[in-house]
């Protein structure tokens, strides 16, 4: 319990709460769209650079197993999300596939929050984790869209959706940052560290305010989605998170790294996935996937998921 509140009382989490609260009291607080987009460019590039410079000093062999395991998570999680949404959530094929695409991909901010939480406990972390974010981002979306395609319900353009995912700004910046970071190495990045590393967590706070505002809007719609979906929005992250933690430990990650991988697997994308899904599955109802991803699963992970995955990773690691 103490670990839980300790996780929640941080500037980053509280700024998210501030955003929700501001929406709740109908404040006119709003992060202007260009600023929000600018911040997401900054955050993605910063994550990429950091991961890339870590890759530059990591022996290639150390990456194979974690990479493979992450890829596997990217294939398994959309499948399980799809069937849970079909069976327990009683959604149609198109809606279930749309939701699955979100759970199959990864929420970058959840990743960041997990990294912070782990670091606060003083535990060491693998530097190359951002590279795993890039690995996990795309496959899940593709797998999920395949379901709808197979069922013949995907009326949207497949080609365009794929282009949207692969050339979407989040993957371009993440991969671009990784490559730049890797090519430059830690030393040449030193000059840009005050901007990209030191200022990072403060900038994240502003971003969290906007996420809070957006989540607050979704939370109000959460009722409409039905209790059934609300519960699934809390169960799926736990399920996928446990899977991610176990897979991470088996792949040789440190307990901290495994907790972060768990948070990644348990998270639902709300940047890359919605754009692709809107193009590929226009008939799917955004009320489902946006409310689940942003209104339920993201806050759930922030508050409960991440400390849970940390605890599990610590316990599981003792058995290995």
């Amino acid at each position, binding site marked *: 319990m103490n670990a839980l509140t300790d996780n929640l009382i941080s500037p980053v989490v509280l700024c998210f709460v501030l955003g929700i609260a501001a929406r709740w009291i109908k404040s006119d607080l709003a992060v202007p*769209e260009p600023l929000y987009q600018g911040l997401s460019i900054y955050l993605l590039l910063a994550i990429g650079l950091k991961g890339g410079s870590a890759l530059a000093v990591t022996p290639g062999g150390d990456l194979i197993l974690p990479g493979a395991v992450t890829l596997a998570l990217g294939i398994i999680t959309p499948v399980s999300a799809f069937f849970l949404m079909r069976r327990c959530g009683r959604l149609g094929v198109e809606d279930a596939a749309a939701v699955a695409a979100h759970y199959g991909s990864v929420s970058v901010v959840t990743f960041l929050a997990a990294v912070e939480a782990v670091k606060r406990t003083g535990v060491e972390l693998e530097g190359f984790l951002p590279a795993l974010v890039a690995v996990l981002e795309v496959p899940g979306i593709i797998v999920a869209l395949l379901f709808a395609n197979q069922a013949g319900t995907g009326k*949207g353009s497949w080609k365009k959706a794929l282009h949207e995912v692969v050339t979407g700004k989040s993957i371009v910046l993440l991969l671009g940052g990784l490559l730049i970071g890797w090519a430059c190495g830690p030393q040449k990045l030193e000059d840009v560290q005050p901007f990209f590393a030191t200022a990072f967590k403060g900038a994240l706070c502003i971003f969290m305010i906007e996420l809070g505002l957006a989540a607050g*809007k979704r939370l109000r719609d959460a009722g409409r989605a039905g209790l059934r979906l609300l519960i699934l929005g809390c169960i799926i992250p736990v399920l996928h998170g446990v899977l991610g933690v176990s897979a991470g430990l088996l792949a040789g990650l440190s307990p901290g790294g495994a907790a972060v991988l768990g948070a990644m697997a348990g998270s639902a994308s709300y940047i890359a996935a*919605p754009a692709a899904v*809107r*193009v590929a599955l*226009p008939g799917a*109802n*955004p*009320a489902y996937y946006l409310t689940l991803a942003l209104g339920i699963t993201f806050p759930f992970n922030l508050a409960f998921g991440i400390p849970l995955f940390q605890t599990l990773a610590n316990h599981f690691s003792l058995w290995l």
Partner: protein
Amino acid sequence: MALRIPLRKVTIIAERVLRDDLITLIKERGASGWTLTMVEGEGSRGIRASEWEGRNIQIDTLVSSEVAETIMDEVGRRYFKDWSVIVYVADVEVLRKDKYIG
């Protein structure tokens, strides 16, 4: 008196993701130009992805009566079912460029 051609102004209001598609569509159907404005809006549809994705787009294109017909029909056919889109048309008189450049 300034010389003007009577034309039709077709206005399409749609989700942002349709931007490139719609521009391609109207150009293919004969429009020689377009003007796009970022807008916000609410219509008969419920929650839309575009709420998160950001604002709507409004595309105005000045075209002949026949081209207007084809564009409207095509937009209706392709997008009305699954997307948040409306289309309307109005009469305008456009100043002829040739009179001044010639």
